[in-house]
């Protein structure tokens, strides 16, 4: 299982009732690669990540993660990746340090190693001084940084980053991508990322896939995508591939909950 693509999708479709979120998608991600998954809102990025991370099952088609099917071998698949979700998944009632500790236990990281790596990562993301403060007292940017630090605590073979830099200032974005690039180089971690910032994708990704309306519309390096669309920048290439229309998303249960949470936080 040590060779072959680390992620492989074949004709994967996911339907929610009548809505087809992901439509007959096939692609591979190679080991050690930094792979950007781009698309307008509602194109199917997050649904794809949820299928890859064992949170939801495809309606049809097959997925192989390091050769394993996430539907039949969820625990083995989970052992191989780390993930930073688009939605916050921190425990706000715990401190930053406790969040790291819980993560260490959940991922079977030895205690000593958890302490060392948590210290290192919290220092890297400039959160160490606030390590004993409850997460609910953190600003949005600090939470995001903690979320990323936590995702890096165990060194996974595969790291999913779903819009990790949303709401981060340029300093933190830079810090984060530098660190992710280092991990990718020094430890051979495969990185699967989504972002709306084309400059980031261009800077870090070896290959880029563009998804729209649940289908892959282009796949290749930034240079290849630009050549294919005869455009000068990745942003222009992206717009050429996906059009200029702004997408409407129907609010699901999760969105409504998110709005409610935002209301509560505003107190």
């Amino acid at each position, binding site marked *: 299982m040590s060779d072959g693509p680390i992620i492989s999708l074949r004709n994967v479709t996911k339907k929610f009732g009548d809505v087809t979120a992901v439509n007959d998608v096939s692609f591979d991600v190679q080991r050690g690669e930094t792979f950007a998954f781009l698309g307008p809102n509602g194109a199917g990025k997050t649904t794809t990540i949820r299928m890859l991370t064992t949170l939801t099952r495809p309606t049809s088609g097959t997925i192989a993660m390091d050769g394993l099917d996430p539907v039949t071998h969820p*625990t083995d698949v*989970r052992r191989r990746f780390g993930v930073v979700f688009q939605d916050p998944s921190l*425990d706000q009632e*715990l401190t930053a340090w*406790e969040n790291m500790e819980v993560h260490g236990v959940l*991922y*079977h990281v030895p205690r000593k190693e958890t302490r060392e790596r948590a210290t290192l990562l919290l220092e890297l993301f400039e959160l160490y001084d606030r390590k004993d403060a409850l997460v609910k007292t953190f600003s949005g940017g600090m939470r995001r940084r903690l979320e990323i630090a936590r995702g890096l605590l165990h060194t996974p073979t595969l790291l999913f980053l779903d819009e990790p830099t949303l709401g981060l200032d340029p300093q933190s974005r830079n810090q984060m991508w530098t660190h992710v690039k280092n991990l990718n180089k020094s430890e051979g971690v495969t990185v699967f990322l989504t972002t709306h910032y084309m400059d980031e994708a261009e800077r870090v990704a070896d290959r880029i896939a563009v998804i729209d309306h649940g289908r892959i519309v282009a796949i290749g390096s930034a240079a290849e995508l630009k050549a294919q669309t005869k455009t000068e920048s990745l942003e222009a290439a992206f717009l050429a591939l996906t059009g200029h229309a702004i997408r409407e998303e129907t609010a699901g249960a*999760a969105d409504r909950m*998110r709005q409610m949470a935002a209301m509560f936080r505003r107190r």
Partner: protein
Amino acid sequence: MSVVYILWLREVKKYLRSRAQIIASLGSPLMYLFVLGFSLGPVFQKAGEGSYLQFMAPGIMAMTVLFTAMFSGIAMLWDRQFGFLKETLVAPVPRIWIMLGRTLGGATVASIQGTIIFIVTLVAGFRPQHWFMVPVAFLIIIMIAVVFAALATAIGSTLKEMQGFQMVMNFLVMPIFFLSGALYPLNGLPAALQVLTHADPLTYGIDGVRGVLLGTSHFGVALDVGVLAAVGAVFLVLGAWRFSKIDV
């Protein structure tokens, strides 16, 4: 095992940090205890049933345990959409451990709340028949807590939105409480009510606590404990199954 422990610890830490919630959740049991306890007391006495406070104190303890345990289901819904549940669901550990950690954490918190109410009832004048039976009563309290924390996990895993929990409170939790014999004796009830009270697992919990603390039991403590254990096992399996099916 360490996974179960850390998630249990998380529930307990969260509880100990939310002083406001602790105090707020003691409000309604205190109302029942003092307002109902002292207002219905004379009537109860005249009916020849003895002290109402003695009678209802175990019921109010169990009620506190029921409400607190069921509340852990709401916490789970909250965690589910934008919180921490996802982090645990993608971790490389069997979901049954996560479910057990959460459920036992919820049950522990409920048992602590029940203990606080027990102390309050002592202050109000409740006296157990034999003090050495108090630890046994607590074993039954813990069983009640596990039964309803497991039920809360099953419900919290199934519901998708907060609004649904309002339904659960009104059409499940309140009936469980009112049909449990927490507030009235089980003898001489109309037939329909008798069937319903006998189908309510909390009835057996409260009856067991009364049997142990007051020496008056309707079903016998052995049957009470047996029913609680059986229902607890069923709810734990149900909770584990529903939890394993969560699709976020």
